[in-house]
């Protein structure tokens, strides 16, 4: 079996938001919608303060609450662990938006581009009218993952079939791959480090692991 997950090393993330920009460019999300973003947490009191950065997006859960509540079966969990949306089936009821504890989903009802009415070049190429008035979210760059099945490349190792955010990360904080493959980079990272998953107590089984210390 294959189960694609992401490992994010919070010790390495510098909050540069390059992953956010890369995602926006790769997926042409409308203004105000960021499938991937980086939370900026400043805690403590001077002089004992800390600043931490936490990249978040769809967690591609083992038990996705969005899939359970979806009345149309537009949201499905694939055998490889990716949670996908069929834009042609979704009715835009927003029940999945309410069900997601990671604020990963959004619905936009109007066509909007970054600079007014006309799309910039990347938007021209990647704008998808099917995404208007339906639920959308991070896909783990599903088209790239599907390309791997045709080319024989390995997601997480070969950039062509790896999510844009992972490719773009300047500090090497993000890794992607098959957790069921003991030799994958994510499997090695998870074995060598202490990790947690966001809101694990909710029983969603998120597919994103946050590294916070060495094992």
């Amino acid at each position: 079996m294959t189960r694609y997950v992401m490992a994010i090393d919070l010790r390495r993330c510098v909050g540069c938001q390059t992953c956010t920009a890369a995602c926006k460019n790769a997926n042409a999300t409308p203004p105000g919608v960021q499938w991937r973003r980086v939370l900026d947490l400043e805690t403590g009191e001077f002089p004992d303060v800390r600043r931490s950065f936490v990249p978040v997006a769809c967690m591609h859960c083992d038990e996705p609450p969005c899939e359970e509540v979806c009345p149309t079966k537009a949201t499905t969990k694939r055998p490889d662990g990716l949670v996908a949306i069929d834009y042609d089936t979704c009715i835009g009821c927003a029940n999945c938006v309410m069900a997601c504890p990671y604020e990963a989903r959004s619905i936009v009802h109007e066509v909007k581009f970054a600079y007014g009415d006309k799309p910039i070049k990347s938007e021209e190429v990647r704008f998808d009218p099917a995404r208007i008035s339906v639920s959308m979210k991070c896909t783990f760059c599903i088209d790239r993952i599907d390309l791997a099945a045709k080319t024989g490349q390995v997601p997480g190792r070969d950039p062509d079939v790896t999510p844009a955010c992972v490719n773009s990360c300047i500090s090497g904080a993000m890794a992607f791959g098959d957790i069921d493959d003991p030799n994958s980079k994510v499997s090695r990272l998870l074995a060598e480090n202490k990790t947690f998953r966001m809101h694990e107590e909710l029983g969603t089984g998120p597919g994103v692991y946050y590294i916070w210390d060495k094992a």
Partner: protein
Amino acid sequence: MSTKSGKPRPGDRVGPRQQHNWDWRAASNFIAGGTGGGLLAFAAFASLWGTDVRALLVAGMALIGIGLTCVWFEIGKPWRALNVYRHLATSWMTREAAVAPFVFGSGVLALATGQSLFVLLTGIFGACFVYAQARILAADKGIPAWRHPRCMPVVAATGFAEGASLLAVAAPFVIPQVAGQIAVAAGVLALLLVRVLLWRNYLRGLRGDGAPEGSLRALSAIDGQFLKYGNLLPAILLLVGVLGAPLASPALILAGLVAVAGGWWFKYTLVRRAAYTQGFAIPHLPVRGRGTAGPAVKPGWGGA
């Protein structure tokens, strides 16, 4: 972003924030649909004693219809609305939608034939509709105030209390016997008591288990007035009705309307004002700099 308490301020969408995807139209479905389903259930109950409930069936179905119409105007792709029937296995929204044709089908047959079987079926399907609506909210894990295990009972209870309250409004017109009216008043009183107990239990549970501060603030803000005007006032009016004062009928009507308004106010608050997202939290700040991990961070949560 740090505060004097050392906790991060909920900014930059780190802490819980109020949901804006479900507006008054979605709230209207829970408001009108819950009341309509409850009314159908109690109309069917009243029919067991020979009450002519045709007008009540029409009203109940109309309320459910209004609620569903509001939702239809809310969804992004209304012309694909029939796709809602695709996920009966796990989606309570599908189940709610699946019950609706049975409500209307049996209701129309009840009106057309006058058969008590269809009246009873309409009541049962109405009750199922109320239950399904309550489960829709409970299944939404992204909104802590809805997924709390004590939320579902109070949402269902208020739907039934509102339905019974509308029966009280109609009682002077459709139940001529004083004993019947007293029975309705007593029933509504009991349901209001149940609603209050479940409401207090829910609020206590939220505060005890922890919830987004915005949810606690919104629900706490209506607590006193919901108890006084939404429940105690109609209860007093019902007692006036039960004790047979000269104004028994107006008291029943007024009590019913006030109790319904109280329930609608609660549901609007729950679906709109108290609906805050989970926000983000991390159990450990990462090891960096000085080489030690930091404490857990969960901004924007209160209680517990």
